[in-house]
């Protein structure tokens, strides 16, 4: 049982002051094994927060990040599932899902985690796998889209060929959790 957190676009401190308090209370050390941050943290303090969760942290560079050190894209294999991570501002046109699917095929991953979009969305393309967009953890907007105002992130439970996703959204100061079980019918294309 492996818990993977997909989160991003916090925009702290340039867009928002901090992670919402209810989210902070839930994200405690010891529960999550991997953290995938899509980008736009913006500063080191946020990175240190994620590292303090005691998990292995993967970060890609967003367009508003201060540090230049994060890679552009990442592919990680966990528990038999290959996950790809990219911020998403590189995908043009921005709101086009086909571009994401093409990138997923290009990277050859089962699950592609992208950010940059304000809504939290999980879709399953026809050739299997998952496209995960955790949205903005602080509900801020980005350079292109207006903000949805709903802070959100995604937690994934990798169980072999099953992926159980929990979508956490802060709507009117209430944490709403949605649980969906996906079957990753895998057809990864070798790179």
């Amino acid at each position, binding site marked *: *049982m492996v*818990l993977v957190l997909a989160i991003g676009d916090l925009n702290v401190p340039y867009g928002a002051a901090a992670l919402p308090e209810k989210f902070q*209370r*839930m*994200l*405690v050390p*010891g*529960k*999550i094994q991997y953290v995938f941050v899509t980008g736009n943290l913006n500063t080191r303090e946020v990175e240190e927060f994620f590292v303090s969760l005691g998990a292995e942290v993967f970060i890609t560079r967003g367009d508003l990040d201060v540090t230049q050190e994060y890679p552009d894209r990442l592919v990680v294999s966990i528990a038999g599932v290959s996950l790809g991570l990219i911020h998403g501002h590189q995908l043009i046109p921005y709101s086009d899902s086909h571009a994401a699917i093409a990138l997923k095929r290009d990277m050859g991953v089962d699950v592609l985690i992208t950010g940059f979009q304000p809504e939290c969305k999980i879709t399953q393309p026809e050739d299997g796998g998952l496209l995960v967009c955790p949205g903005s953890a602080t509900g801020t907007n980005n350079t292109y889209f207006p903000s949805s105002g709903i802070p959100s992130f995604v*937690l994934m*439970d990798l*169980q072999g060929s099953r992926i*159980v996703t*929990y979508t*956490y959204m802060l709507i009117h100061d209430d944490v709403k*959790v949605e*649980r969906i079980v996906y079957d990753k019918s895998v057809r990864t294309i070798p790179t």
Partner: protein
Amino acid sequence: MEEVELENIELPHAESRKHSLGAAFESRLNTETLVPAARSRVENHGTVARKDQNRTPSQKVGDAVRHAKGKGSEDPGAASRQGPELNEPQKVSSQEPQRRAVASSMPARETNFHPHALPAKVRQERFSQCLHGDALVDVDVLARLVWIWGVPEDAAVARALTWKLLCGYLPEDRALWESTLAAKRTEYRNRVRELYVNPQEEEGVEMARNDPALEDDHPLSTAANSRWAQYFKDSAIRETINRDVKRTQPELDGFRPLEERLARILFVYARQRPKLSYKQGMNELGAVMLQVFHDGRGVPQSASSADSAADDAEADAFFCLEHILEEYARFFGDESAIQHEIDEFSQLLLFRDKPLSDHFARLKLDARFYYLRWLRLWLTQDFDMAGAVLIWDFLLSTSPTARVRWMRFLGLAFLQQKRTQLLRSDLSVCMKLLLHSGSGRADAFRLLRDAELLQCAPPDRSRGALAYR
């Protein structure tokens, strides 16, 4: 009132320790002369007491003094036996009044024998008879036979069986054993299955409860009834337990395959008592219990029955550990109970051995540093398995409430054995002496004998508690 004082008079025999039965055991004196004499002491003990009732206090003192000097008295038993090698039984009899105090602290039965008066063969026979022969096992007699001398039969099966009876796990009626064991073992297995919570649904395994609350359950939940929250809490407890179990009994190779079982036992116990949970130290207690029951599970007929026999041993060890910890759990959590016990022990040390107590006070060596470990672990870490098992035989044969009281005397005896070294050492050397001596079975036996002597010996604070040395 006067009789009590008489019995507590310190008789001026500085070397009487040499002549005690314990010393005889150690130095392997001629038991053929000693044993019949000892038996006659037990038989004549009643007559000596009856004779004393008619004498005035001063006459009684005179008797006692004459008795000690071995010049003989009006006692018909002693008068008929003279000779240097038989002075020992007379010294033994002068200790009889004191020993009577000890015997009365044990459960009284009409089979009124004292274990010290029985030769080894007789004790073994009576033990086998008690354990295997009768339809109704007399647990009091069993306890008396095991007291101080340990389980006579050297077989591990006998020890495991004795411990189960002494813990009250097995009933006295032999016919009920099978059903009781089967019921208890199933109970344990069910508990294990219940407590190993897996918050994920597994394909093929149905969720027994269709709890609406579970619909909203998620890994980051902090709700009270969340299975995920419980799972993470359990993981934390299990990690602590595993860390301790890996360090348990490092010298004992035979214990390594039992680590997983011990972890399971401790986890089930911890989950049953969420307030106390698991505390360090319970692993040592559980380890001894499990090792003894595992060794005592008998010869397996086949591979599958070997597994189930090991599982049964694990279940038995769990319930017996529960029994011990019923009385002892408070020493793991309750601060006031711990402080009370430490104070009692410090008082005992002060009362019985003032020089040593003052020495420790000067070094600022509080009893908490050594006594708490002895109390919680039943001296397991200070003896190897063979010695520890003897001490456990002794402690299990006493009643649960008496165990705590005897522990104080065991601690006192332990200090007395190292007294001269302790008195001339500084703090660090003292601590080293009081930790992990790793002594064996002979040392354990000596400790038990000393504790018994201390329990009834008169106080002489100026020369140390065991004034005979």
